[in-house]
């Protein structure tokens, strides 16, 4: 079997930016920081959820409350992402459970996402190889179309329904191991079953909580997550060099909290086995050798839009 050259193997190799033993120490996992973060996460969710509770009779305040709660809700993606790498907690069982829970909230099948994401790390920002690539939009209309989330939801729901019928595309079969295809199909089927069950409960019991606290907030705020996800690689060179193809964004502590430190994206791509709570330390060690946007997401989009204008 041909040896697979993972990004981590390059990061731990002879020409590494961080000495092997130092990086290995950063890779050590613990449950404590993740559990503390999770507790604060639940406190924040309770707070933003209560904003909806208190504004349900005030129609002009309800939509802003849903948007604020939705911003936290869509950041469950960050938790799912960390759990996918098994770097949120030392416990794999807890990581698996939370990845499944978050995946169900956001229509991101956890097992499928895990394998898709492995290839994203192996072929980051490379055309036709990176299954999660968000290409630089061709023009402003394409930029806004992506942020509208219509193509995103269409791909998430469409993909889930297709895979539930047992059909995986050629591209998907490149990254889903043959031994895992049945499980990937089954997880889509189970997710659809779960959604149908909840819809049935909503309709028969007039139980509106899923709509008020989950679906509408997520739909309202997903553009925020698209806005953030676009800054990770879009507009960076489409080359197999993580020091160039990935963008780290320096953002405020609240955004860092929401993102489970995933704004240190170049550090994450440098060594995906480093837990979220050590990414800042890793960032400090490599920040002079990777691409850093010091003014955060907004400036990253200025850069993206400049590149869109330049090419259109």
């Amino acid at each position, binding site marked *: *079997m*041909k*040896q*697979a050259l*993972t990004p*981590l*193997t390059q*990061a*731990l190799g002879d020409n590494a930016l961080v000495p*092997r*033993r130092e990086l*290995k120490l950063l*890779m050590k*996992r613990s449950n404590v920081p993740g559990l503390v973060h999770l507790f604060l996460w639940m406190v924040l969710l309770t707070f933003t959820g209560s904003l909806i509770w208190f504004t349900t009779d005030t129609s002009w305040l309800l939509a802003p409350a849903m948007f604020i709660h939705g911003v936290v809700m869509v950041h469950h993606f960050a938790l799912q992402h960390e759990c996918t*790498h*098994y770097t949120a907690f*030392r416990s*794999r069982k807890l990581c698996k459970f939370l990845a499944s829970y978050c995946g169900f909230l956001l229509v991101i099948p956890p097992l499928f996402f*895990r*394998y898709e994401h*492995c290839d994203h790390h*192996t072929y980051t920002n490379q055309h036709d190889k990176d299954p999660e690539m968000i290409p630089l939009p061709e023009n402003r209309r394409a930029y806004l179309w992506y942020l509208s989330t219509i193509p995103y939801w269409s791909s998430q729901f469409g993909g889930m329904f297709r895979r539930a019928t047992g059909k995986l595309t050629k591209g998907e079969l490149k990254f889903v*191991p043959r*031994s*895992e295809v049945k*499980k990937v199909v089954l997880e889509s089927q189970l997710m659809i079953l779960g959604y149908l069950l909840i819809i049935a409960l909503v309709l028969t019991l007039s139980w509106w909580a899923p709509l008020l606290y989950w679906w509408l907030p997520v739909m309202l705020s997903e553009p925020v997550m698209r806005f953030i996800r676009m800054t990770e690689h879009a507009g960076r060179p489409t080359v197999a060099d993580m020091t160039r193809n990935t963008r780290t964004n320096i953002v405020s502590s609240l955004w860092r909290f929401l993102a489970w430190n995933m704004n240190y994206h170049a550090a994450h791509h440098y060594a995906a*086995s480093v837990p979220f709570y050590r990414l800042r330390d890793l960032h400090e060690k490599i920040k002079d050798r990777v691409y850093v946007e010091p003014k955060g997401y907004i400036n990253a989009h200025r850069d993206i839009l400049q590149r869109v204008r330049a090419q259109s």
Partner: protein
Amino acid sequence: MSEWQNLIPLADLEPDDVTPARIGKRRLAVYDRPDGVYVTAARCTHGGADLCDGYLDGNVIECPLHQGCFDIRDGSPLEAPATRSLATFQARKQGDFVQVKMPVKALTI
């Protein structure tokens, strides 16, 4: 016929972690554990990634590519997508070296 061979100096062993080693043309992973040392093939039986760059937690090595897991003591696959066992080799600490017991012909493979 199998013989004990010096593999790597004890001083090069990454404490409580996995260290890459080579004997002949064969790449091996050496695991330092409180109850001794273990040696397996270095390459994941699923995707071919280098397990020496994986994450060692207790007696479980996690592949850096797809996060499949193996038991380092007997090479058995513990977590998908790993399905086939890793080759394992008898190992010991002897003097200043980690030694591994391998068939002599394996040294040239």
